[in-house]
């Protein structure tokens, strides 16, 4: 793509969408389609459907693969890497941080309960 802002726009959008992809990434797929087919003329509907079909047919992380193919279409290999990271990075970070906070909250909670029980 000639537009240098395209990869940044795509990556930012994927970061946002992957952060809210409750129920798995397919739940935000219509929004991705809208962004890359209609908002930006990066690919045809047919190509988007092809990426989806391919990602589903190949074993492994389907949606990360699909987004890397979308990124590849927009910005070649760097786009593929950026899109893959934008798809699986944010949820991983959220899980990781949430788990740490959760454990800490639970730990302080347990201490409170224990203290109340003993005294």
């Amino acid at each position, binding site marked *: 793509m000639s537009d240098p802002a395209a990869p940044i726009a795509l990556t930012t959008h994927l970061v946002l969408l992957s952060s809210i992809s409750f129920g798995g990434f397919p739940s935000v797929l*219509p929004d991705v389609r809208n962004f890359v087919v209609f908002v930006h003329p990066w690919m045809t509907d047919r190509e988007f459907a*092809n990426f*989806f*079909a391919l*990602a*589903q047919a190949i*074993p*492994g992380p389907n949606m990360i*693969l699909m987004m890397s193919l979308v990124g590849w279409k927009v910005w070649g290999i760097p786009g593929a890497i950026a899109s893959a990271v934008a798809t*699986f990075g944010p949820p991983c970070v959220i899980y990781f941080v949430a788990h740490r906070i959760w454990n800490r909250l639970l730990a302080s909670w347990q201490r409170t309960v224990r203290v109340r029980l003993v005294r």
Partner: protein
Amino acid sequence: MIGAIAAASGFVLIPLTIGFLLGVLYLEHTHLAVLRRVLGGVSSVAAGMLIATGIRMLLPHRSRSQAWIVAGGAIIGLALAKLPLLVVLLGTTSVSIVLAEFGAANSQ
């Protein structure tokens, strides 16, 4: 922390690289009619699987009317009203939490 990153990338990186190379190889040859037809068939199957996943997720909750209200709201908002996902998500999750709270209060 490093272990977490290593595990996550190991889990994703190898299948993703293989899949990506296969995918690109395939997409370079979509001018072949046979491959185009195969892709068309696979995408119908994949779309069907996606719909089946949605139905399977709803089935355990089929006796709860709240679940149908929330699911119906999401479908109307996304498919019919074409609202942005974030708006629908914020709307349905807040309604869902309130409904769940009501349900819990009633059953107690």
